[in-house]
C-alpha cells in the first residue's frame, strides 16, 4: 500500500467511526426522548384507560 493508501485508511476509519457513533447517539437520544415524553404524558393523565 502506498503513502496515500495509509492516509486514506486512517481518514476513512476515523470519520467512518465518528459518523457511526453520531448516528447511534442520535438514535439513542430519540428513543429516550420518546420514552420520556410517553412517561410524562401518562403521569399527567394517571386515570387514562380506567373507568
Amino acid at each position, binding site marked *: 500500500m502506498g503513502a496515500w493508501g495509509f*492516509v486514506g485508511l*486512517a481518514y476513512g476509519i*476515523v470519520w467512518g467511526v465518528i459518523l457511526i*457513533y453520531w448516528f447511534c447517539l442520535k438514535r439513542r437520544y430519540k428513543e429516550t426522548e420518546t420514552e*420520556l415524553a410517553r*412517561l410524562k404524558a401518562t*403521569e399527567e393523565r394517571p386515570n387514562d384507560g380506567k373507568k
Partner: protein
Amino acid sequence: MAQPVQPTKKRKGIFGALAFLAVATGLYWSLVVAPPDAYQGEVQRIMYLHLPSILTAYLSYFLVFIGSGMYLWKREKRDDILAHSAAEIGVLFTALTIIEGSIWGKPTWGVWWTWDARLTLTAILLLIYAGYLMLRSLMEDEDRAATAAAVLGIIGFLDIPLIHMSVYWWRTLHQPPSILRPDKLPWENVHPAMLTALAISFVGFLLLYFYLLSLRYRLGEMRAEIRALRLQREA
C-alpha cells in the same frame, strides 16, 4: 399539529453545523493545502487526525476527573452525568488515536504495534476508561456504580501525565512532541501551513467534541428523569 422548534434543539443544530464546517475546512487544509513532510512524505498527514484526537481524549478525561471529583464532593447527579458522558466520548477518541497511530506506525516504523512506553500507557488509558464504562453498566445499584466509577475516573486521569512524559523518561520509538515542546515555540519548529492545518483540524475536533458531549449529556439527563419518574410511580 405543527410544533415550533425548541431553542435548545436549534442551538444544537447550529453547533452541529459549525462543527461540520470546521471539520470540512480542516480536512481540506490537511489533505490539500498543507505540504508533505520532508522526511515522511504524504503519510505525515495522519498527524492532523492523530494529535487532535488524543488532545480531545485528554480534554474528555479532564472533564471526567472534574465531574467525578465534584460528584464525590457534592453528590450532584449532573456531575456524574457529565463524567459518564465525557468518559464514553473519551474512549471513542482514545480508540481512534490508537488506530491512527497504528496505521501511521506501519509505513514509518515498519510495524502496526510495538510495546513502546507511550503506546502501552495509551492502551492502558483506554482499558481504564473502558473498564469505567463496563463498571457502570454491570453494577445494578446506580449510586454505588456512580461512586465506584468516580474513584476510577480520578485514578485513571493520573495516567495522562505519565503518557506525556513517557517519551522523556524512557527510550521510546515514539517521537518526542513537535508542538508542545518546552524548548521551542510551535512556529519555530513546524511549517506555518502545517501548523494552520493542525490548528483548524483541532478546532474542528473541539467543536465536534462539544456537540457530541451536549447530545450525550442531555441523553444522560433524560435517562435520569425516566428513572426518577419510574421510582416515583413505584413508591
